[in-house]
């Protein structure tokens, strides 16, 4: 194969593979904007003329399933992520800057938490939450999420603290700044990339979480949009338009987040891949 063949063959092959790969999502996208009867007849056709009737139907549901789900998802994700960032930044910094066995053991226990599947603890977790009267409440699921995702935050921040020269903190301390102030004024701003990683990854994970909201949030407080999709399956088994529209709307926030912060996403993912 001569190099000139390769130069046009490579993008062509890549494009073809990407197109095949994207086909399932294409099918969802075009059918969101198609009347239901056209979906069955021409599933792969472009939506001409396009209709927003499916989206409108989801937004106007009399039980407001989508809107309640959206409010819950936003609350849960925003609170959980913010709290994890604050707590894990401090804890990560503390552990990175503290010598001794206790810190090492603590770190080990935290890191073992990275591998715990939700299914392992969910049953006992509901009992703990129940004993605090937190089952079926937003604070309950936020606390559960904070605990569950804290190790990831600590892991990311610890890795980053090590790149911040300790002399800087010492200089600030000599100037009379307390530990607390030093951390928030000097160190935390320097860790912006780490903060971005934690924010983005946890944002996506918590938004998309299924088991925790399904079981912890229960029915009392409504659902998240992700559990809402699951619930809509039953009712819209044959109404693909409505189901796809629900899924599209439920995914829209994370998609927008991804498109806006694509660079940070990739950077967060790949920081480990390149330096080892």
């Amino acid at each position: 194969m001569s190099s000139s063949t390769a130069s046009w063959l490579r993008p062509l092959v890549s494009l073809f593979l990407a197109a095949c790969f994207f086909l399932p999502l294409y099918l969802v996208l075009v059918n969101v904007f198609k009347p239901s009867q056209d979906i069955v007849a021409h599933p792969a056709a472009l939506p001409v003329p396009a209709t927003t009737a499916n989206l409108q139907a989801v937004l106007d549901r009399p039980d407001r399933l989508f809107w309640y789900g959206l409010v819950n998802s936003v609350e849960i994700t925003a609170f959980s992520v913010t709290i994890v960032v604050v707590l894990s930044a401090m804890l990560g910094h503390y552990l990175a800057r503290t010598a001794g066995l206790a810190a090492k053991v603590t770190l080990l226990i935290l890191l073992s938490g990275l591998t715990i599947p939700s299914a392992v603890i969910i049953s006992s977790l509901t009992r703990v939450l129940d004993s605090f009267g937190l089952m079926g409440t937003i604070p309950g699921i936020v606390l559960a999420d904070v605990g569950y995702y804290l190790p990831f935050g600590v892991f990311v921040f610890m890795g980053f603290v090590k790149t911040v020269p300790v002399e800087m903190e010492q200089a600030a301390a000599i100037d009379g700044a307390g530990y607390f102030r030093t951390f928030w004024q000097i160190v935390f701003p320097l860790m912006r990339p780490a903060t971005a990683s934690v924010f983005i990854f946890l944002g996506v994970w918590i938004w998309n979480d299924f088991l925790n909201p399904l079981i912890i949030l229960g029915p009392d407080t409504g659902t998240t949009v992700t559990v809402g999709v699951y619930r809509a399956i039953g009712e819209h088994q044959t109404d693909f338009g409505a189901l796809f529209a629900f899924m599209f709307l439920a995914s829209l926030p994370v998609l927008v987040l991804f498109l806006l912060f694509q660079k940070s996403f990739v950077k967060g993912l790949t920081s480990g891949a390149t330096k080892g």
Partner: protein
Amino acid sequence: MHRPLRLAALVAAAALTAAGCAAGGSSVSGGGGDKVTMTFLTFETPNLNAKYWDDAIARASAKVPGVTIKKLVAPSIDRTGYAKQLAATGQLPDIMIAVNPNGFAQSGQLAPWTDQELADFTYPHANPIGGKVYVLPFNTQPTPLVYYNKQDFAKAGIAAPPTTYADFLADCAKLKDAGINPIVVGGGGNDTFAATYPWVASVGTDVYQGTPDWLSQRADGKVKFDSPDFTKATQKVADLAKAGYIDTAGLSRSYADTEQAFRDNKGAMYPMGSWFAASADQTKPPFDVGVFAWPSDDGRPTVPAYTGGGMSVSSKAPNVDLAKRWALAFMEDKQNLDASVHADGSIIAIKGYIPPTDMGPVYNETLRAYNEAAASGNVVNAFNSETGDGSLPPGMSDVVNSAAVDLISRHKSAQDTVSFLDAQYDKANR
């Protein structure tokens, strides 16, 4: 200096807000003075959609003042599984509809209905547990009857629906020869129950017809699933599958897709619960639909049916009496019953109730098939739907559903299937 402080304050404020925040779905108007708020667990299907429930709840609440009902919706059609999950996490709803009480009742989580409360019901003692009734027996559902495509039958040269099992097999052969798939079943995803109906029907004709209390005998250990009668019923289904009379494509279809498949002419016969009648009348398929009872060997018109389907009340409801009053009002409201008949093809089991006169032909034929069996004493229990004493232990119903899929997909032989049921039965009782 200011930034970190502000941040800290923000975090504190955020935490506080979180603690005091009411979540989205719970915004119930609490304005009504000393009203009691109670939760009511429903489920949604294409027949029973959100509007159906909202309207019915509003009518009941208008009759019973002092109650604010918060509707909960099970995330899938398996509301019993969801109620269990909620009970396991300390959140059992105050009022539930069409939930299998088995297990809940024995552990004292449900309030029994008194004879006085059951006075208006036709079969007040349907499916009792320890002599007490925990589910209002408000309707009877023949499960299944065979709905068939009259056009396909004509095409295959079948003049009248079969009355004996031999006829039935002959008709299946004719349909298949005419290039028509004889039997439509479902069973994909969460809807494995849709695969069970040929089996439930065979158990009706070959087991329950001769031994009505067979399942109680199983509970007492007097019979087992691998006894000859149950094995024969199971073998019938295996043979139907083997002969290619049941389209296995259905095993990946959800319940609604299954109904759609029958409507789309992907098979001539659709063994399904009587609720299909409502759907068939509401949106008529592009062909006429007939109904017959799954034939027995000797031609007796055996109809498996389940009576119950109504409300249960949690023994820990904030006000059990009020909850019961509301539940009864919901059940006995004429408009609610009419809506249930219209939407779900219910055969109401409340004294003096007369169904709406504008019911469609499929519902009327369903009613006729049921009444015919009832008049000749040929109504039997619907296997896997029973909820009273001696019924399947908790969790076993799912096992039966998936075993039906194994049977039809010929993943397990009839003999293996019945042995499997025996093993799982013992495990579920452990």
